[in-house]
């Protein structure tokens, strides 16, 4: 199995492990399905990737992941993460190894995709509140000449802080916005799944002792 496929499977496993947790978060301010949706999506992804030829580049693999999530997640997270990953696939087309600059470009493309699709911006209590500060921290790491693993670590910490931040704000996008002020005090499920994925990627690379 190629390393990028293994990385995605690790991400998927982290989501599946957190299925109940994400669903419970979504019960508070949504429709109690975020974990179910995401786990269903990544089960489909893992199944799909296991049938994929070894020789596929990162771009191709990500496109496959995106289309699978779009067709199986069911909730808002499906088109959002799906679009994000489709966009991230572009700078990764033809690549088998990713350097920090490419990862940064992919991450930027992903966020642009989510913003276009969801018409949301940071501070609306969505996955963007984890993903955008994470990218910023990642970029600071690159600017400071840090290794990819250390950049990812910075990103993961920033994402976790972003998740904490979502507890303090009102949801103005998605289902949670129906709750208005009552959404305050609750942590956004999408921001949480974003953090879980970043953390899983970090852990995967750490476990590989690589980068």
């Amino acid at each position: 199995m190629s390393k990028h496929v293994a990385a995605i499977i690790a991400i998927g496993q982290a989501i599946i492990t957190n299925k109940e947790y994400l669903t419970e978060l979504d019960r508070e301010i949504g429709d109690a399905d975020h974990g179910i949706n995401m786990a269903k999506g990544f089960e489909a992804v893992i199944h799909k990737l296991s049938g994929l030829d070894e020789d596929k580049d990162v771009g191709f693999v990500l496109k496959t992941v995106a289309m699978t999530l779009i067709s199986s997640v069911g909730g808002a997270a499906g088109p959002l993460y799906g679009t994000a990953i489709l966009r991230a696939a572009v700078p990764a087309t033809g690549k088998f190894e990713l350097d920090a600059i490419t990862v940064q470009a992919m991450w930027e493309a992903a966020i642009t995709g989510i913003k276009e699709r969801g018409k949301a911006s940071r501070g609306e209590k969505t996955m963007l509140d984890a993903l955008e500060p994470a990218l910023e921290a990642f970029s600071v790491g690159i600017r400071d000449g840090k290794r990819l693993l250390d950049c990812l670590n910075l990103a993961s910490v920033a994402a976790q802080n972003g998740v904490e931040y979502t507890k303090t704000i009102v949801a103005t996008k998605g289902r949670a916005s129906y709750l208005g002020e009552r959404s305050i005090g609750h942590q956004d499920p999408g921001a949480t799944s974003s953090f879980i994925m970043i953390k899983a990627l970090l852990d995967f690379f750490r476990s590989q002792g690589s980068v």
Partner: protein
Amino acid sequence: MVGIVIVSHSSKVADGIKDIAQQMAKDVNIIAAGGTADGEIGTDAFKIQEAILKANTGNGVLIMVDLGSAVLSAETALEFLDEELRQNVCIADAPIVEGTIVAAVQASTGAMLKDVLKTAIGACTLRKI
């Protein structure tokens, strides 16, 4: 005639709206695209894409949605369409049941997409009581 795609999180809702609307506009091509691929509550961009292709008979397609997250799937579906068809599809920011019914009646007269869209949006101002 303009075709209509009904995107609801529930396949029952999408199918039932089609039943009601078709009673008043039996010649309009109305395609229900509700629920996820596995029949759960949710939406499915690929199901929507397929529905758009089925609904289109050359005069464009109006997409009716129930909630914001249905819009996300519908817009994702649009991305997968040929540029030419995409130019001829729009998503109505309109109440899904009420909008679909009046849009279907309007479409049955052979009205153009932009007018069918306007009618759907106007459903919000129709009083029931």
